[in-house]
Structure formats: structure tokens, C-alpha cells
């Protein structure tokens, strides 16, 4: 009659008042941890699941970052090894007739730092030459061969076999960091990236606020269009606006040609404008969300007390919107500093961290310096992340009491409307212009030079193949991430797991850390057995899924907080196992979080660039990267054409999801 459920957790975990923690001192903290662990161990299913989750998070998020950190503290030296298989009978003979003469001729070789002699067994001896850090290894090898020539005849009769090999010796050292700070061309990238992120964030937050405010409170004719404009940049690959800005304002762009003046969009202006347009929707979503849930009662009360419009705005509305504004600022900052596509296309001769990390790897095979760049990408991201957690935890911002308020809608004051429109208006025109450029670019031969209509740019079999791969890729990642993320959120919210906070932080790490870092980390971590995954499709999917885990996690968490735990307790009381409770009760209730995670991961997967550029291999080409490659070669028409196809695909999927949602009556978005 009474089912044997060892489940006492659900009852207690949510009832534990937070104030208990305040009274904790070290002793009771430890005893609580011990109690947690004991209770935890009693539930094998939970243990298994958590163990699995921990292992996965560790392998696919922590390990790559660890590798990056390690790589940043190593230095590689080119090594030339001469392996002799000789016929000397005694050690003394070997030393006198082979080692000494060879060492003498080797000494004056330029770039040589150290020579070591290794004797293995009776007939094998190796001489290892270590050269300076960035010495041309071919030069080292050829110099060695040339140096040996004079003594070749004297040693030849005793040598059965000789073999020259090139290699690399890795040593721990902070030399790369020292190099970073001693050459301005390195740390300028750090400075530029931070300045860029701060500037872009500030402008985006300002714009997003204006868009959201007018979009919610402004005249009705403006609301719909502004909402669309604020969100539409989301459907396009993030660097598409660099492309359109180049078409608009590049050296042979529309604006210079039409108005006949020299104008260079490359560099700071281009990157900032492109980033502002790209990240506006993110800011808009956050701020609109918080503004929407703001009851107007406080503002109305203030108006009744004859506060001026500006006072209301700056002293009530904005402070109440802090959570949304801060969230927006954090998100945009993280994205701006990690942005790869825009700087790649339009930064001209200004250097930024994310692109430079790639270029230093690719340009001089300096993975060590790339790793150092990655470390400097992680630090500001981590700081912002922690600041956000610290600033927002434990402060209450709600004004809604749960009851709907019947309020006469106040029309937006002219004193606020007009200044905001000054900000919103030109921005809207710019966004429309950018999309317009893409269309024009795709359908004309060469914009502004040969304006004949053509469909040829769409004829790119490889481009279409890359689109198909992108869809496969995004779908796969989108199937994994929400399931894993939501399961994790359930464990974190409902269950008492020791070191929960640490685990939660680690899983969010995948998102906070810029894509470049994860890209480099994955190459370092998974290029050799036992986990040789590079070159496969799988590694790209895993990378994308784990990077976007946190969105599903957050969505699941917030939804779970809204659901009363009593429902699950009822299920348990009626004999349902934990697993059944989860699959039959919890999952359906938070299905909107699952779907939100799916949509987000899919959309982000379609336009992924910064991490996957390190991981693509022949046959696994992604559309966004293909567009980048084509654009860099100067073929802007084809880049626009493939971009349009990409946008169409994303729109189709979004519409399909909305249809499915309507049909199954699940609230999609």
C-alpha cells in the first residue's frame, strides 16, 4: 500500500529556506555537505545520471579549456634528430670517431641552442639538436646535413644507417606571455577587443532600450514594425551586415559611388556598426522582456504626483529594468568580444583578439600564441559573467503581484518619443538598407559596376552542399543540447547534489567562453587517441551542443521555478519512480523550455563560425563558413546569394516550428 520510495528529496529540497544558509558557519556547512552526499548516494539512479553528466561536462567543456591554458604556457623548439645505426665496438671508439667529429662540425650551425647525445643499446646512437624557438626547421635540417658533409667520409665506413628527422620539443615556460606583452602588435588586439566590446555594448543597450520602449509604449503604428526590425537581424548570419556595409560604404560601394566622395568603412566604424546591428536583437529581447513585465502602476503613481516625464523614465522605468539591461549588456559584451565574422571581413588593418587567435595559428603555426590570445579572451568574459551573477543574485525587481491590472493605457509622451525616434529612426533605415544590399548584391553581377540582373551567383553546388551540411549540423546539435540541458536543469533545481554550484558553473562555462577558445581547445584535446575526434562531423556537433547547453539549462531552470513542486510530489506519492515523474510529468510541463532550447541551438548552429572554423574538414563544410570564404575572396555576389538561401532556410524552419507549435498547442514563441 505504501510504495517503497526512498524519495524524501522532493519534499525537502524546495522547502529548505534560504535563510538557513545565512546561519551557517563552517561546521554546519560541512555537516550539510556530508548529509547531502549521504542522501545522494542512496539514490543510484541520480548518482549515475549526475556522474554521467559530470563526466561529459568535464570532457567536453573543462578539458578543452584546460588544454588551452596548458598550451599557452608551453613553448615549442624545432628539433633535428640524427639517428645512427653504427658498428663501433666500444663506447670510447664511438665517442672518438663519431660523436666528437660530428659535434665539432655541428657547433657553428646558426640558431642551434643545444645538442644532446643519446646512446641506446649497443649499436644505436642519436644526436638531438635543439634550435631557437621560431627557427625555420627546414633550414635547421639542411644546415645540419650541409655541416656533416666534411666529416661524411671519415664516419661513413662505420655507419650502417643514418636517418634525419624533424620534430618539436615542448617545454613549459611563460615565454609566450612575455612575448605577448613585449610586442605591441599582440596586446593591441586585447586593447582593441575590449574597447570594441564596451563601445558596442553601450550603443546596443541604448538602442535596444529605445526600440523596446517605443515598441511597447509608443504609438500603435510604430509597434509592429519596430518589433520586426528589432528582431530581424537574428535570422541572418552574424557577419552578413559587414557584407552589406561593404556593399554600401566600401571603396566602390553604393554611397561613395552615388555621392562621389572617398569613404572608408573598413576599420573601427565598420566593425562597430556591424556589431551594433548584429547584436541589437539580443539586447532588444532582454530589455523588451523586462519592460513588458513591468507594471505601469509605479509610473502612473509618479505621474499622479506630477513627476516629469524624464524623471519617471530615469528614476523609475530604467532602474526597474536593470535586470534586463544588465543581462543584455552581459550578453552583448560576451558576443562582441568573441565576434569572429565581422572583424574578419571589415576590420581592415585593425586587429582583434578572436580573429588574431585564428590568424596566428594559421599564419605562423603559432598555436602557443593562439592559446595565449584565448586566455585573454576568457578573462574579460569570465569577469563579466561573474559580475552579472553577483549583481543580480538576491535582488528583487518584480512589480507584478500576479493579478492583472486594469490600467488606462498612457500614450507615450512627445518629449520622450521624439528623442527616441532620433535614435530609432536612422537605425531602422540602416537595418532595412543592409537587407536591401544583400538582395541587390545577390541579384546583380557586380553591384555598382555591372548592374545587370543575374541568377548566376545562386549556381554554387558547393554552396548548396554546405547548406545541407549546416542543416544536418544544426539539427543534430539542437536535438542533443535541449535534452541534456533540461535534464541538467532538473537535477540542479529539484535535486540535492553535492557541489551543485560548481557543476552548474562549469556547464555555463561553455557559453561564457568565446567560441575561438573552444575551437582551439577542441583541436588540442581531441586530435590524438584515445579521443581522436577531429575531422569528424561528430566533434563539430558536440562542440556546438555543449556550447549552447546553458541556454536550455537556463530556460529549463526558469520554467521549473514556475512549476509547483507539489505536482511532482503527488506523482511520487502515487507510486511513480523518479524517472517516470521526470518523463511523464516534468518534461511535458517544461516542453516550452525544450523547444526554446531547440530553436535557439538550431538558429545558432546554422550561423556558427568562431568555434567551428577550427574544426571543419573536407566534406564537412558549413554554410556560414563558406560564405565567409567566398566573401574573403572578393566574390560578394555569391556570398550574398548563399546568405539569402541561408536566411530562407532559417525562416522556413522557424515557421515550421510555429506551425507545429500551433498544432500541438505548445507555446513555442
Amino acid at each position: 500500500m505504501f510504495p517503497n520510495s526512498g524519495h524524501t528529496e522532493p519534499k525537502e529540497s524546495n522547502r529548505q529556506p534560504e535563510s538557513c544558509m545565512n546561519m551557517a558557519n563552517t561546521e554546519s556547512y560541512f555537516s550539510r555537505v556530508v548529509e547531502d552526499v549521504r542522501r545522494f548516494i542512496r539514490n543510484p539512479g541520480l548518482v549515475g545520471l549526475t556522474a554521467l553528466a559530470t563526466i561529459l561536462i568535464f570532457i567536453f567543456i573543462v578539458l578543452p579549456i584546460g588544454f588551452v591554458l596548458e598550451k599557452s604556457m608551453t613553448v615549442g623548439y624545432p628539433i633535428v634528430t640524427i639517428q645512427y645505426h653504427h658498428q663501433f665496438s666500444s663506447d670510447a671508439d664511438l665517442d672518438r670517431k663519431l660523436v666528437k667529429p660530428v659535434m665539432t662540425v655541428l657547433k657553428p650551425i646558426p640558431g642551434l641552442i643545444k645538442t644532446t647525445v643519446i646512446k641506446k643499446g649497443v649499436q644505436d646512437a642519436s644526436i638531438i639538436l635543439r634550435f631557437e624557438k621560431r627557427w625555420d626547421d627546414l633550414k635547421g635540417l639542411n644546415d645540419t646535413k650541409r655541416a656533416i658533409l666534411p666529416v661524411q667520409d671519415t664516419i661513413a665506413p662505420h655507419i650502417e644507417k643514418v636517418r634525419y628527422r624533424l620534430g618539436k620539443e615542448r617545454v613549459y615556460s611563460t615565454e609566450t606571455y612575455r612575448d605577448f606583452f613585449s610586442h605591441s602588435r599582440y596586446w593591441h588586439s586585447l586593447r582593441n577587443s575590449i574597447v570594441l566590446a564596451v563601445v558596442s555594448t553601450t550603443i546596443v543597450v541604448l538602442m535596444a532600450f529605445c526600440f523596446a520602449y517605443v515598441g511597447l509604449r509608443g504609438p500603435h503604428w510604430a509597434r509592429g514594425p519596430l518589433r520586426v526590425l528589432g528582431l530581424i537581424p537574428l535570422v541572418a548570419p552574424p557577419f552578413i551586415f559587414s557584407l552589406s556595409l561593404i556593399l554600401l560604404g566600401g571603396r566602390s560601394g553604393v554611397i561613395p559611388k552615388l555621392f562621389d566622395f572617398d569613404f572608408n568603412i573598413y576599420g573601427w566604424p565598420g566593425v562597430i556598426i556591424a556589431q551594433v546591428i548584429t547584436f541589437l536583437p539580443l539586447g532588444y529581447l532582454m530589455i523588451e522582456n523586462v519592460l513588458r513585465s513591468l507594471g505601469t502602476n509605479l509610473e502612473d503613481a509618479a505621474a499622479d504626483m506630477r513627476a516629469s516625464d524624464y524623471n519617471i523614465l530615469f528614476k523609475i522605468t530604467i532602474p526597474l529594468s536593470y535586470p534586463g539591461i544588465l543581462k543584455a549588456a552581459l550578453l552583448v559584451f560576451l558576443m562582441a568580444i568573441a565576434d569572429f565574422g565581422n572583424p574578419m571581413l571589415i576590420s581592415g588593418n585593425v586587429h582583434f583578439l578572436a580573429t588574431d587567435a585564428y590568424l596566428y595559428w594559421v599564419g605562423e603555426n603559432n598555436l602557443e600564441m593562439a592559446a595565449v590570445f584565448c586566455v585573454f579572451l576568457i578573462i574579460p568574459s569570465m569577469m563579466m559573467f561573474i559580475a552579472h551573477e553577483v549583481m543580480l543574485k538576491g535582488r528583487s525587481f518584480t512589480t507584478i503581484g500576479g493579478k492583472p491590472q486594469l490600467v488606462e493605457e498612457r500614450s507615450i509622451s512627445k518629449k520622450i518619443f521624439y528623442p527616441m525616434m532620433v535614435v530609432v529612426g536612422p537605425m531602422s533605415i540602416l537595418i532595412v538598407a543592409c537587407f536591401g544590399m544583400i538582395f541587390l548584391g545577390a541579384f546583380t553581377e557586380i553591384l555598382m559596376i555591372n548592374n545587370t540582373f543575374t541568377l548566376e551567383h545562386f549556381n554554387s553546388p558547393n554552396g548548396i552542399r554546405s547548406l545541407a551540411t549546416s542543416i544536418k549540423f544544426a539539427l543534430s546539435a539542437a536535438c542533443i543540447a535541449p535534452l541534456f540541458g533540461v535534464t541538467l536543469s532538473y537535477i540542479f533545481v529539484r535535486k540535492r547534489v553535492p557541489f551543485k554550484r560548481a557543476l552548474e558553473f562549469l556547464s555555463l562555462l561553455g557559453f561564457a567562453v568565446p567560441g575561438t577558445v573552444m575551437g582551439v581547445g577542441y583541436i588540442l584535446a581531441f586530435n590524438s587517441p584515445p579521443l581522436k575526434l577531429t575531422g569528424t562531423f561528430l566533434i563539430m556537433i558536440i562542440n556546438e551542443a555543449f556550447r549552447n547547453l546553458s541556454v536550455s539549462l537556463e530556460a529549463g531552470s526558469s520554467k521549473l521555478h514556475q512549476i509547483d513542486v507539489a505536482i511532482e510530489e503527488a506523482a511520487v506519492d502515487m507510486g511513480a519512480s523518479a524517472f517516470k515523474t521526470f518523463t511523464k510529468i516534468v518534461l511535458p510541463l517544461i516542453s516550452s523550455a525544450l523547444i526554446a532550447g531547440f530553436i535557439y541551438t538550431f538558429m545558432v548552429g546554422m550561423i556558427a563560425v568562431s568555434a567551428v572554423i577550427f574544426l571543419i574538414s573536407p566534406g564537412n563544410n558549413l554554410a556560414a563558413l563558406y560564405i565567409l570564404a567566398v566573401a574573403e575572396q572578393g566574390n560578394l555576389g555569391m556570398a550574398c546569394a548563399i546568405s539569402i538561401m541561408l536566411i530562407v532556410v532559417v525562416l522556413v524552419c522557424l515557421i515550421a516550428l510555429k506551425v507545429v507549435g500551433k498544432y500541438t498547442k505548445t507555446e513555442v514563441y
Partner: protein
Amino acid sequence: MKQKGILSAVVLVAVTVMFLFSTQALAADVLKVYTHTDISEMEKWAPAAEKAIGARIEWSPRFSSNELWSRAEAEAPNFQADVIWGFMNMQAMIGAAKDWFIAYDSPAWKDIPEKFKDPDRYWYGFNYWFAAAVVNTDLLKKKNLPKPVSWTDLTNPAYKGELVMPNPGTSGTAFLSVSAMMQIFGEEKAWKLLDGMNKNAGQYTKSGSAPAKLVANGEYAVGVSWDHAIYSRVDKGFPIEGIIPSEGTAYDLDSVAILKGCKNLKAAKKLIDWIATKEAMELFGQTRSKVTRPGVKATVSMEPKLIKYNAVWAGENKNRIMSTWKEKFQK
């Protein structure tokens, strides 16, 4: 519950479709190729090769020469690709010295002169290309600029802001021209010339083809690029002209090699055999200036003043020259 049923059905379908796609890829006979060849050329060469070797060719999305090389170096010895079809000769020599290739003595190559083949048969050269300058004649006229005829002319301050060049850090073309200048003028004078050119440079592009495109589009008046990128656009009717500097320029032997760990050795060998055939060479000749099979016509009939380029020297001094270049010109 109906909605859960539909949702899970949709998910199931999606997952199945995905798996179908991926298993299909595994089943087919595939050859993975790294290349620095232009996308527009590969889109013609790959299908032709596929027909000849009977396997599907999956090629990398057009890395620039150095990107390709850095990727290979990072992956060695567990390469992700089977073959490198299209990389610089200097890189081929380095790769052979590092023991990255599988030797294959192809019978199809016996008619091709020895100087285009590795003595140990680790690599083969199938066409050669040279670095050249390009000008937009319309822009020159509009801005009243003289037409440059030599490397030295490119340092003329009149071209300030009008010169676009590829970045030797990523582009093989750029490194070819830089190292060629070193060999023509000697290092000291070459650095002075590069300094002058740097003062005129409006932008450095990642790929060697981009300057030709930008000059053709009228974004810059003068550029440094390579022959195919320039002459293919002359043919298309752009107002541009290719300039072979009077002091001479260097050519590079575009090479092909089989990577260690190649998973489809049969197809790789067939590919190398096919590259030497007259049909393949004629296909390459449609876009490249010179091919290595004697008697096959290519795009450039005149003999540009090509210096005797020392690829070994270039390979031995690559890092040093590039570091110095970055020290001087990349702020």
C-alpha cells in the same frame, strides 16, 4: 497525450533523417582533399577528377596557402585529409623532409620532365603560376596616375592608399612575391622596397586572389596578385591589365602529394595518375598559365621574365622573413 506524441514523432523523424544522411556519407567511396586552389577552379576540377577516379572528392573550402599548411602542421601526423592537391612547392619540400607523405611512383608521369617531380616521388608538380601586379586602367586614368612597370614603381608615393596586397602571413602568393623580391634585389634592398610599398598599402587581404578582385571592382588602382586571378578577369572584360614587373618575378610549382594515413590509397593513386593525363592537363591549362606536361597549351603563351626561384631557400627562411615582415608592417 497527443501533443507529446506529435512532438516526439517529429523529433524521431528528424533524428532518423540525420542518421540516414550520415550513414550515406560513410558508405560512399570518398577521397578527402586539402587544397589552396580557387573555389571557382575546384568546382570544375573536382567533378572531372571524380569521374576519372570513381570516388567522391570532398575538398576543403579553399584555404589560403598558409592556412592549409598550418592546419596540416597542427594535425600531423594524424591528418584529416587523404591528399593535398594544390599547395606550394616549398611546402611540398618541407612536408617530404618531415616525412608526411606516402611515396608513389606513378607510371602516368613518365613523360613529364624530372624537374617537376620529387626525386623520391613524394610529390608531383602539375602547373605553375607566378606573382604579378595588376592595375585598373579606368581608375588610373581617373586619378591621373602613371602605370607601374616594376616592383620599384610600386613604391611611388603617388599610389598612396591605392595599393592592395595580400598578407604574406596567410597568402602563398604574397610570400612568393616577397621571397622573389628578396632573391632579385637581395634582402636589404628588398626590405626597403617593401617598406615603400607598405606606405602605399590601403589594405592587406588574406587571400592572394582578393587583390585582383578588388582592383577589378575598382576599389583600388593597383594590386599584387597572381596570374590566373588577373588574366581570368581580363578575359571577363574588367578594365584591368596584368603587369609583369620588369625586374622579374618568381613562379611556384603547384604540387600534389599523398598524406600519411591516407584512408583511400587506391583513389589517391588514381588521382595522381589522372592529373598527369592530357585531358586533366588541358583542363588545368584553361585557367593556369603553364602546365607541366609538355605540349599542352595553357593560358599564357608569352614567357614572362621568370627568375630562377630558389624554393629551398624560401622554405628555409620562411619563418624568419614572415616574423620580420610582421615586426615591420603589422602594428
